[in-house]
């Protein structure tokens, strides 16, 4: 384990009955790294993320997240991660400010700290005028950006982003990635799954899961050159087509 690794998975395995969803995957993600977690639907991405976020117990193997073991220290793991899912996760009937305070609140932030962070966050997103409007009235792109900022409100060591950009227009997608890069530069480790293969190029390193195993694990350019292809699309097709 390298000293700067925030996520270390070691032969992480999860079986459901006779079906092996995740088969002994091992990888490390460094502090401040943007790690792309790619794979077709049903390849085991979600199961792997669930294990790393303390929602699902590994059948075998271990994973350390933010220095805590997911099998034995799920509580501490949960405190050190943020999570944003593809499904919209803010409450439409609460205002921008109320949403931020709620999510900060359930992580046990003190009121003074929470207030300061909430105002800071609202300013950063340029939402001063909308702070007391219901989230349901905001455009989708703004909701997604707000959801991302909210996932970071308790300053987690690691953020899991599960297809955060699905259904978002290209311009917002671009801005979204700027936010992700900025968070990584501040030292937050990012693990992101995506269906947009061009987004994989923005990641520092990627892994491609095929049938519960890791078929590739390197920087985007290294993965491409190893397979002798030029685009991420080709990488994806080449790897997934080999599976029956």
């Amino acid at each position: 384990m390298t000293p700067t690794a925030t996520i270390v998975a070691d032969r992480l395995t999860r079986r459901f009955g006779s079906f092996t969803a995740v088969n002994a995957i091992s990888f490390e993600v460094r502090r401040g790294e943007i790690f792309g977690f790619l794979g077709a639907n049903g390849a085991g991405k979600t199961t792997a993320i669930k294990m790393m976020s303390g929602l699902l117990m590994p059948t075998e193997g271990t994973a350390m997240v933010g220095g805590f073991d997911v099998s034995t220290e799920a509580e501490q793991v949960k405190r050190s991660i943020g999570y944003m899912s593809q499904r919209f996760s803010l409450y439409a009937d609460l205002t921008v400010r109320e949403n931020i305070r709620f999510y900060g609140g359930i992580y046990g932030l003190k009121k003074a700290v929470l207030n300061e962070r909430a105002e800071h966050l609202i300013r950063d997103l340029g939402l001063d005028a909308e702070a007391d409007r219901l989230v349901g009235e905001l455009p989708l792109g703004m909701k997604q950006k707000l959801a991302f900022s909210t996932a970071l409100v308790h300053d987690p060591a690691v953020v899991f982003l599960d297809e955060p950009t699905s259904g978002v227009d290209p311009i917002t997608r671009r801005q979204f990635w700027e936010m992700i890069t900025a968070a990584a530069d501040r030292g937050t480790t990012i693990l992101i799954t995506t269906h947009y293969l061009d987004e994989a190029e923005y990641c520092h390193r990627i892994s491609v899961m095929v049938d519960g195993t890791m078929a590739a694990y390197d920087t985007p350019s290294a993965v491409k050159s190893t397979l002798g292809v030029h685009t991420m699309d080709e990488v994806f097709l080449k790897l997934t087509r080999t599976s029956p």
Partner: protein
Amino acid sequence: MNAFRAFILKEFRHILRDKRTLLVLFGMPIAQIILFGYAITTEIQNANIAVLDRSRDVRSLELTRTILASGYFTLNADVRSYDQIEEAFRKGRIKMALVIPPDFAAKLQRGEADLQVLTDATDPNMASTLVSYVNAIAARSGAQGKPPGIRIEPQMHYNHNQASVNMFVPGVITIVMLLVSAMLTSIAITREKELGNMEILLVSPLKPLVIILGKVIPYLLLSMVNVSTVITVGHLLFGVPMEGSWLVLAVACLLFVVCALSLGVVISTIARTQQVALMLSLMALMMPTILLSNFIFPISSMPFPLQLISNIIPAKYFIVIIKGVMLKGVGFEVLWKEAAVLAGMTLLFIGISVRKFRIRL
């Protein structure tokens, strides 16, 4: 504790900002009690009748007058023969016909007078009620057909004037509490699942028990507000007596609300969507509760299998308690068995939901 407060605060905001929930929560109980209180009544007033008087003397006219003066009947047809009675029944103009025989006065003298009462038994409950009214009036005016011997003098205890509202108010309180508590909590929890918020809550350090409690406590408070409203309306507007202790009543209501809420949580662990939660609450909870809780239909006259099933309906026990407290004025020294069953059921539901909630993780 901060986390818990944040959760409760959020839950109250959800409820108070949702007009539909508010309407169900506060509008429905009032609407129900007024509906049941005024519309559904087993007392009959001004039933249309016909009198075929074949003696036409002082005695028979006196009897007719007495019967019409009771307020239960209105003379609605002028009949001279059985054929005309038949016709009036067919046209639906009358519900009952009274036939006074030609020798009525003479037989009355000898103490063996009889009267014929014909009723429209397409509505059997109404028919038997009307017959019993006539019986009572006839007995009072000394025209009793039976020879003197055993005389039965009925006294209706705890609900002297047999006001049906005294039966329905406890029933409505029960149904409303169950509906609001179980249905709204199960919907509130499944909504989090459906919209994807539950994932975020489960990933957060919040414990499952805190999530459940955070969901349940706001509804617990609101349900207790509701119960007070319904009981106050029943007491003030419909004159339902309150013989027992308010404290005992409050404790019993609290117990039942907690029971219903935990049932709602159980439903939410089964249902994936709000629609399913709603259907489950209505079909699996409401219908059996209305039918098998002794609210409208007496359990004792049901076939044995249904009587058995009625034992697992929480409302059945609560109705016994609430009637006991409000109408008979008894306390837990009498009702402890029912209370214990409710408490047991509540623990069972809480056990199931905490377990199921964990498995979902």
